C-alpha cells in the first residue's frame, strides 16, 4: 500500500520526463516501422500510414501507458479541477454566496471561540502562561449577587509572602498616579502616568525581562537604586520617541529625580493595567514619591510544585480571616465578608466574578458561534443540494455517454472539496487578519487574543465536511438513477425527494437565522441603550476634576491622623482660596475621597408603614457619596425638593444616629413612588454594618451624574462630608476648561509642591469611558452586523435559488393559462409558509439564547423580549418574501416557450 502510494507520487513527480520519453520512444518506433514498409517498395506517405495503422491509436496507447505508470489519476484530477472551475464560473453569484458564507461563517465562529478562549485562559499581555503562576485575589461581599475585589494591607500581603509552604515566591504591587516632568526643554511637562510600585521579585515572578535595560531593584541598604524606573513600551514611544539611549536618563516624577533603568517588552502592561503611560518602580521608592496608601496591595505568586490553587486558597482564606479579626479588634473599617482566593493568573481574573462571568460569557458567545456555524452549514448545504440537482441533466448525459459512476462522483467530490478548501483558506486569512488588526489597533487591550487551534480546526473541519457531504449526496442520488428516467424527467419520485430535501434545508436555514438575528439585534439594542443611559452633562468641558492622593485614614492612629490632617488640610485650604481667585474659575468645591463612585454602604429599608401606603417595605442597596455643601452648586445640579447640605448640618446631626441624605429623583421615584420622600427615613437592613446610621431625606435633586455608571442594584445617596473628607476639588469654569489646566498645575506646584494631584476635565474622563465603551461596542456590533448580513445573504440565496429552480414549473403553469399574478402569489405564499415553519422552530432557541445573553450582561437594561423577537421575525419574513418574489416574478414574465426550450 505504502510502496504503491510512494510509486504514485514518484510517477507524478517524474510525469513530465516520462511523457517526453514516451513520445520519443513512440516516434522512433513509427519511424523504423515506416522505414520497414518503405523498404518493401511503398511510397513515403503510404509507408507512414501503414506504420500508423500497425501501431494503433496513439492517443489511446498513451492513455494506456499513463495508466500503467499510475499517473492517470493526476491528469484526471487536473481535468476535474478545470471542470469544477468552469462549473462554478457558470453560476458566479451562487458560487460567490457559498464561498462568502462558508468563509465568513467559519471565520466568525473561529474568532468568537478564540476571543472567549483568550479571555478565559490568557494571562496578561507579555506574560507567559504557566500552570504555577497564580493571582492571590482579595474579595469581599458586594451586595446580594456577587463579590467585589479587595486590595490587601501591607501586613496581609506579607502574610501571604510568608506562605512558603505553598508558594515559591509571592510578588506584590501597589499603584499610584504620578506626574512626570521631562525637564524644562521637553515637550512633555506635567504628564500624568501610572506607576506600579513593585516588590523586587515582581519581574522574576511574572518571568518578564525588560526589552532592554535592567529591572529596577530597590533596597534599603542601597538607596541609590531606589529611584529607578522601568517604563512601558508605550511610554517609551509616547514620551521618549523610542530614544535608544533612554537607559540612565533622569526624569522628574512627582518632583523626585528618577533614573530610567529599562523599557518593558512591547505588550507588557503589568498584571492589570489600562492607561497609556505606565512605569514600574521599586516598592521602596513609594515613600519618596507619594503618600502611601497602605491597604492597596495586590499580589501574584508561583505555586510550589505539587501545590494546587485550592490548597493555596485554603491557606490564604484563613489568613484573610485572621486579618479581618485583627482589624475588628483595632477598630478599623472593614470590608464585608473578606476572603482571599488563589486563582490562575488570567488577565481578567482579578475580578472575583471572573469565573462566573466566563461561564456565562462562554455560554452566550458559544451559542452565538454555534448558530453562525449552523446557519453557514445549512446555507451551504441548501445551495450545494440545489447546485448538484440542477445538473441532473448534465450528469445523466455523461452517464449515457459511458462515464463511470465513480468518475462522476469523483468529479462532484472534487468540486465541493475545491469550494470548501478555498473558503477554509479565506476563513483562516480573515481570522489571522482580524487578530493582527486587533493587536495593532488596540495596543492597550489588556488581553492577548490568540487563535484557538482546537476550535479553529473543529470549525474548519466541519465546514469542509459539510461542503463535501452535501456536494456529494445529491450526486450519489442522481447517479444512482436510470439514465433514461432522468433524461425524461419522468421520475416523480426524484423530484419529490429533491424538493423535500431542499425545502427541509430552507426551513432549517430560517430556523437558525431567526435566533441569530434575535441575538444580534438584542446585543445591538443593549449596546445602544447602554450609550443612552450614560447621559453626558452639557457642561462637562467646563468642569475640572482635581484628585488628590490621600492616605487612608483607616490604618493610622488618632494622633497620626490628626497631625497628617492638619498638614494636609492647610495646603488644601490655601489651594482652594487660590483656585477660587483664578480668572475663569466660577466655583470651587471640595470633593470627598472616592469621588465620584462612592462607597457601597449596604442594604437599607424604608420605614414600615410610616411612608409607604399599605405598609410595605422596600429594600435598596445603597452607595453613598459624601459631598461638601458647595458640591451641588458647582455642578449646577437642580434641587427639586427640600434643600442640600449646609454648614450647620454637622452641628445639627452630631452625636445622632441619623444622618441627613440628599437623593436623586430616580431613587425617590423608586422608593416612594406615591409619597413625599422629604423627611422619610431609611434604616439599615439587618445585614448592614451595625454602626451604620439611619438616613433622613432632606432633599431631592436631579443629578444625571448620580445615574452614570451606577448599576441598578446600587442606588446613590449623598451624605454630608466632614471637614476632614478631602479628596480634591471640582472647579467650574466660565469657558471650556482645557486651556486653564497648565495654570492650575502651576498653582498646585506653587502652593503645595508636595501634593500629588491629578488634574483633568470631566469631558476627558467621560471621553475616556466612552472611547473604551465605543471600542468594545464597535467590535461587537461589527461582528454582529457581519453575521446578520451573512444570514440575510444566505437566506436570500437559498430561497431565491430554490424558487429559481422551479422556473420550468412556473413556465408550465403560465403555458397552461395560469394567471401570472396568481402564480407569483402562489410561490410567495409557499415561501412564507416555509418561513413561518422555520420561525416557529427557531423560537425556542431564540428565547433560550436571549435568556443566556441577558444573564451574561448582568445588569442589562429592560429589554422587551417579544419586541426584539417580533422585529427579528419580521426581518426574516421580509427577506424570505423578497427572495421568493423576485425570481418567481422573473420566471413568470419570461415567455414559457423560451423557458421550456432552454431547459
Amino acid at each position, binding site marked *: 500500500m505504502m510502496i504503491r502510494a510512494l510509486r504514485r507520487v514518484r510517477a507524478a513527480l517524474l510525469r513530465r520526463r*516520462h511523457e517526453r520519453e514516451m513520445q520519443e520512444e*513512440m516516434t*522512433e518506433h513509427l519511424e523504423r516501422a515506416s522505414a520497414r514498409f518503405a523498404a518493401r517498395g511503398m511510397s513515403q506517405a503510404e509507408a507512414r500510414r501503414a506504420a500508423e495503422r500497425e501501431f494503433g491509436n496513439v492517443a*489511446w496507447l498513451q492513455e*494506456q*501507458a499513463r495508466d500503467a*505508470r499510475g499517473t492517470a489519476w493526476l491528469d484526471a484530477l487536473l481535468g476535474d479541477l478545470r471542470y469544477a472551475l468552469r462549473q462554478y464560473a457558470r453560476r458566479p453569484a451562487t458560487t460567490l454566496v457559498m464561498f462568502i458564507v462558508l468563509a465568513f461563517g467559519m471565520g466568525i465562529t473561529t474568532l468568537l471561540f478564540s476571543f472567549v478562549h483568550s479571555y478565559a485562559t490568557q494571562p496578561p499581555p507579555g506574560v507567559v502562561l504557566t500552570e504555577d503562576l497564580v493571582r492571590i485575589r482579595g474579595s469581599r461581599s458586594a451586595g446580594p449577587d456577587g463579590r467585589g475585589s479587595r486590595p490587601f494591607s501591607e501586613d496581609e500581603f506579607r502574610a501571604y509572602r510568608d506562605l512558603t509552604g505553598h508558594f515559591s515566591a509571592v510578588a506584590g504591587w501597589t499603584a499610584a498616579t504620578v506626574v512626570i516632568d521631562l525637564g524644562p526643554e521637553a515637550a512633555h511637562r506635567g504628564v500624568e502616568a501610572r506607576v506600579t510600585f513593585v516588590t523586587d521579585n515582581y519581574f522574576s515572578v511574572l518571568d518578564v525581562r525588560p526589552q532592554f535595560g535592567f529591572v529596577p531593584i530597590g533596597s534599603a541598604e542601597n538607596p541609590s537604586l531606589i529611584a529607578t524606573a522601568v517604563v512601558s513600551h508605550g511610554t517609551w514611544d509616547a514620551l521618549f520617541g523610542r530614544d535608544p539611549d533612554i537607559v540612565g536618563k533622569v526624569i522628574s516624577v512627582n518632583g523626585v529625580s528618577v533614573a530610567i533603568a529599562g523599557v518593558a517588552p512591547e505588550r507588557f502592561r503589568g498584571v492589570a493595567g489600562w492607561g497609556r503611560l505606565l512605569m514600574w518602580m521599586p516598592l521602596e521608592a513609594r515613600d519618596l514619591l507619594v503618600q502611601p496608601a497602605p491597604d492597596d496591595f495586590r499580589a501574584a505568586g508561583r505555586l510550589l510544585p505539587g501545590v494546587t490553587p485550592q490548597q493555596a486558597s485554603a491557606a490564604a482564606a484563613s489568613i484573610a480571616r485572621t486579618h479581618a479579626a485583627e482589624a475588628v479588634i483595632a477598630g478599623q473599617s472593614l470590608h464585608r465578608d473578606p476572603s482571599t482566593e488563589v486563582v490562575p493568573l488570567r488577565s481578567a481574573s482579578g475580578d472575583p466574578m471572573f469565573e462566573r462571568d466566563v461561564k456565562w460569557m462562554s455560554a452566550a458567545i458559544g451559542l452565538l458561534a454555534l448558530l453562525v456555524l449552523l446557519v453557514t452549514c445549512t446555507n451551504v448545504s441548501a445551495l450545494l443540494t440545489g447546485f448538484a440537482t440542477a445538473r441532473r441533466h448534465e450528469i445523466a448525459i455523461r452517464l449515457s455517454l459511458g462515464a463511470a459512476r465513480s468518475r462522476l462522483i469523483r468529479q462532484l467530490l472534487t468540486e465541493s472539496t475545491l469550494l470548501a478548501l478555498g473558503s477554509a483558506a479565506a476563513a483562516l486569512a480573515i481570522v489571522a487578519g482580524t487578530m493582527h488588526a486587533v493587536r495593532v489597533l488596540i495596543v492597550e487591550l489588556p488581553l492577548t487574543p490568540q487563535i484557538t487551534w482546537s476550535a479553529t480546526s473543529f470549525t474548519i473541519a466541519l465546514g469542509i465536511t459539510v461542503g463535501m457531504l452535501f456536494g456529494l449526496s445529491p450526486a450519489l442520488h442522481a447517479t444512482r438513477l436510470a439514465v433514461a428516467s432522468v433524461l425524461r424527467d419522468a421520475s416523480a419520485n426524484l423530484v419529490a425527494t429533491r424538493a423535500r430535501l431542499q425545502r427541509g434545508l430552507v426551513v432549517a436555514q430560517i430556523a437558525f437565522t431567526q435566533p441569530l438575528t434575535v441575538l444580534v439585534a438584542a446585543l445591538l439594542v443593549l449596546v445602544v441603550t447602554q450609550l443612552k443611559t450614560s447621559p453626558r452633562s452639557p457642561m462637562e468641558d467646563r468642569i475640572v476634576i482635581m484628585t488628590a492622593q490621600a492616605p487612608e485614614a483607616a490604618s493610622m492612629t488618632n494622633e497620626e491622623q490628626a497631625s497628617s490632617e492638619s498638614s494636609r488640610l492647610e495646603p488644601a485650604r490655601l489651594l482652594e482660596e487660590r483656585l477660587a481667585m483664578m480668572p475663569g474659575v466660577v466655583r470651587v468645591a471640595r470633593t470627598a475621597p472616592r469621588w465620584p463612585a462612592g462607597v457601597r454602604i449596604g442594604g437599607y429599608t424604608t420605614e414600615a408603614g410610616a411612608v409607604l401606603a399599605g405598609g410595605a417595605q422596600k429594600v435598596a442597596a445603597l452607595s453613598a457619596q459624601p459631598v461638601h455643601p458647595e458640591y451641588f452648586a458647582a455642578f449646577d445640579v437642580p434641587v427639586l425638593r427640600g434643600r442640600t447640605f449646609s454648614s450647620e448640618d454637622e452641628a445639627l446631626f452630631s452625636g445622632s444616629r441619623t444622618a441627613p441624605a440628599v437623593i436623586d429623583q430616580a431613587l425617590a421615584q423608586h422608593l416612594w413612588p406615591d409619597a413625599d420622600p422629604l423627611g422619610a427615613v431609611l434604616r439599615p437592613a439587618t445585614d448592614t454594618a451595625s454602626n451604620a446610621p439611619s438616613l433622613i431625606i432632606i432633599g431631592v435633586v436631579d443629578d444625571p451624574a448620580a445615574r452614570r455608571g451606577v448599576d441598578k442594584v446600587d442606588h446613590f445617596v449623598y451624605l454630608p462630608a466632614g471637614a476632614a473628607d478631602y479628596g480634591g476639588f471640582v472647579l467650574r469654569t466660565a469657558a471650556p476648561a482645557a486651556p486653564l489646566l497648565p495654570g492650575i498645575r502651576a498653582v498646585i506646584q506653587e502652593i503645595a509642591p508636595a501634593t500629588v494631584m491629578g488634574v483633568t476635565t470631566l469631558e476627558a474622563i467621560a471621553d475616556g469611558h466612552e472611547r473604551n465603551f465605543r471600542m468594545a461596542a464597535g467590535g461587537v456590533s461589527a461582528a454582529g452586523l457581519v453575521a446578520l448580513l451573512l444570514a440575510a445573504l444566505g437566506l436570500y440565496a437559498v430561497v431565491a435559488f430554490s424558487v429559481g429552480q422551479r422556473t420550468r414549473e412556473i413556465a408550465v403553469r403560465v403555458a397552461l393559462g395560469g394567471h401570472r399574478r396568481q402564480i407569483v402569489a402562489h410561490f410567495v405564499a409557499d415561501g412564507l409558509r416555509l418561513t413561518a415553519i422555520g420561525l416557529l422552530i427557531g423560537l425556542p432557541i431564540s428565547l433560550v439564547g436571549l435568556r443566556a445573553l441577558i444573564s451574561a450582561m448582568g445588569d442589562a437594561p429592560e429589554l422587551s423580549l417579544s419586541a426584539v423577537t417580533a422585529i427579528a421575525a419580521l426581518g426574516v419574513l421580509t427577506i424570505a418574501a423578497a427572495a421568493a418574489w423576485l425570481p418567481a416574478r422573473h420566471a413568470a414574465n419570461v415567455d414559457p416557450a423560451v423557458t421550456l426550450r432552454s431547459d
Partner: protein
Amino acid sequence: MYGAMSQSFLTGTLELVVLQLIQAEPTNGYDLTLRIQAISKDVLSVNAGSLYPALYRLEERGLLKFTWQKSETGRRTKVYSLTAAGRRELAAQRAGWERFAGALAAILKVT
C-alpha cells in the same frame, strides 16, 4: 479462429514473453515486436498498444531497467534489460507456466 486464439493466449502471457525475450537479449520496444513475430513464425503478433504499457508496467514494478542507446535511425532509443528482480520474476512465471502447460497437456491427452 486460430489467430484469435493465439492472441488471447498471448494476452495472458505477454509479461512472460517480454521478460523471456529481454533476458535473452536486451532490446528496445520496436525490435521486441519484430522478434515476437519472427520467433513465433508469425503465429503471435503483439501491437504497440499492448507492448508499451506492458513495458512501463514492468519498469514501474522494478523488473525492467533501461539504458539509452543510438538506434539505426540515429535517434536515441530505450534498450530494456532485466533487473535481478526481473530475473526472479521470470523464473517464477516460467515455472508457473510449465506447471500449467503440463497440466493442460495431461488433460488434452485424455481421450
